[in-house]
């Protein structure tokens, strides 16, 4: 029963608290599984990057940056590859399960940014910059949130595709060609990671700003005192 408001009766008084079921369990399950998987993928990926921190030629090698070992996972290249090649299956599996669920349940409408959301973008931008009132909403997510989550999913798909090309440039040579070759795929993979990290940073800031009830909704599915009235 997604997005149905119920009233919770207090045991002590006559007051009631509205609550809404916002996230079905597959979404929450994938969210947390993916959070762990992404953490490991980024950490081990950076350790792998340390083995050749460049996007140019090997001879002469010009290092791009010296990423600290303490902020990486795996300890050495072989160890990091074990983490990366293990968790990539969890990451891909979670992603496929999530996409399948969203599509077949119709729950994708909650976050998919479509042309219908375009008119709502500007009022929301004005609100975020303290230039306008908060536009009334009848949905869990405003147009900017939908735009962010839709982008995150696209970035997730790109991270897998670019990774597949680096892992298997021969079996996926057509994909490698699409990405401008093995060299470029490695660069895309790296840039997509930073884009995902940027999303996560913004996501965490917004989670803090939106408070406890919002956070709990990703654990139990229920959000108390929602700041919108569903259609």
């Amino acid at each position: 029963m997604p997005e149905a408001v119920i009233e919770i009766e207090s045991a002590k008084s006559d007051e009631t608290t509205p609550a809404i079921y916002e996230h079905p369990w597959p979404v929450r399950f994938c969210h947390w599984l993916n959070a762990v998987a992404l953490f490991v993928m980024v950490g081990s990926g950076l350790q792998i990057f340390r083995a050749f921190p460049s996007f140019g030629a090997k001879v002469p090698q010009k290092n791009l940056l010296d990423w600290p070992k303490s902020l990486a996972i795996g300890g050495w290249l072989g160890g990091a590859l074990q983490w990366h090649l293990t968790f990539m299956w969890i990451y891909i599996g979670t992603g496929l399960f999530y996409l399948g669920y969203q599509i077949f349940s119709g729950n994708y409408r909650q976050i998919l940014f479509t042309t219908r959301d375009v008119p709502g973008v500007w009022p929301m931008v004005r609100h975020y910059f303290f230039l306008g009132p908060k536009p009334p909403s009848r949905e869990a997510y405003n147009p900017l949130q939908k735009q962010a989550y839709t982008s995150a999913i696209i970035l997730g798909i790109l991270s897998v595709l670019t990774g597949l090309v680096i892992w298997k440039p021969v079996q996926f040579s057509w994909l490698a060609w699409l990405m401008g070759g093995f060299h470029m795929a490695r660069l895309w993979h790296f840039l997509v990671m930073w884009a995902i990290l940027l999303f996560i940073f913004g996501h965490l800031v917004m989670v803090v700003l939106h408070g406890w009830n919002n956070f709990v909704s990703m654990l139990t599915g229920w959000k108390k005192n929602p700041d919108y009235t569903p259609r």
Partner: protein
Amino acid sequence: MESRINERKFKRINRRELLKLAPVVALGAFALPKLQAPLLKAGLGFSDWASALLFRKGLLAPTYADSEVAPIEKFYVNDYDVDDPGVDFDKWTLTVSGSVQKPGDYTLAQIQALPKIRHNTRHVCVEGWDVIGSFGGARLSDFLRVIGADTTSRVVYFECADDYYESLDMATALHPQTLLCYEMYHQPLTREHGAPLRLQIPTKVGYKQAKYLTDLKVTNVLQKVGYWEDQGYSEFYGL
């Protein structure tokens, strides 16, 4: 669709919903020192199993025009210990054993008598760098036919003059681009690139392409997999 429930029931529902996420906690097993190594080994094993499934025998690795080949000075020399194990070329032979009809010592001339393949392919190192090089040699599959190898065996195992060792799954060993390579850049292999004979496999990562070959064994059982594999690197690592 509005309804009312009391606080206790709501809390019970919430607890049940939270419990559905419990399997995520199982990932915590990766943080336990005792379980970490076996779990990662299993993960890498699964990855190798999937890699073998993804490998297509008939699919050729991309080849490149001479103009795209990096000059040999830019072809990085990577060894695990020495650039030159001091092979005596006059006395060198490839010693063949295992599930073959004609075991024994084979000379470089015998290998060079096989049809010569030349191609420009991409060499990809596990570290992440890559270089397009020019290679020449005999197909390993042709040589396996000459020695009468049982190609239903699981692997071809190699030993090298520098004590490096490697093993190759049979599907890759039979791939038409897998070479017993004795030339790079139209010149006899130099010592630092693995003279007189090395593996050159466009469908495998660099460390599978052993240099200074001395022994070849066709077998189903391996005591050791490969120098890097035995330290925790992927066994299949097909590109």
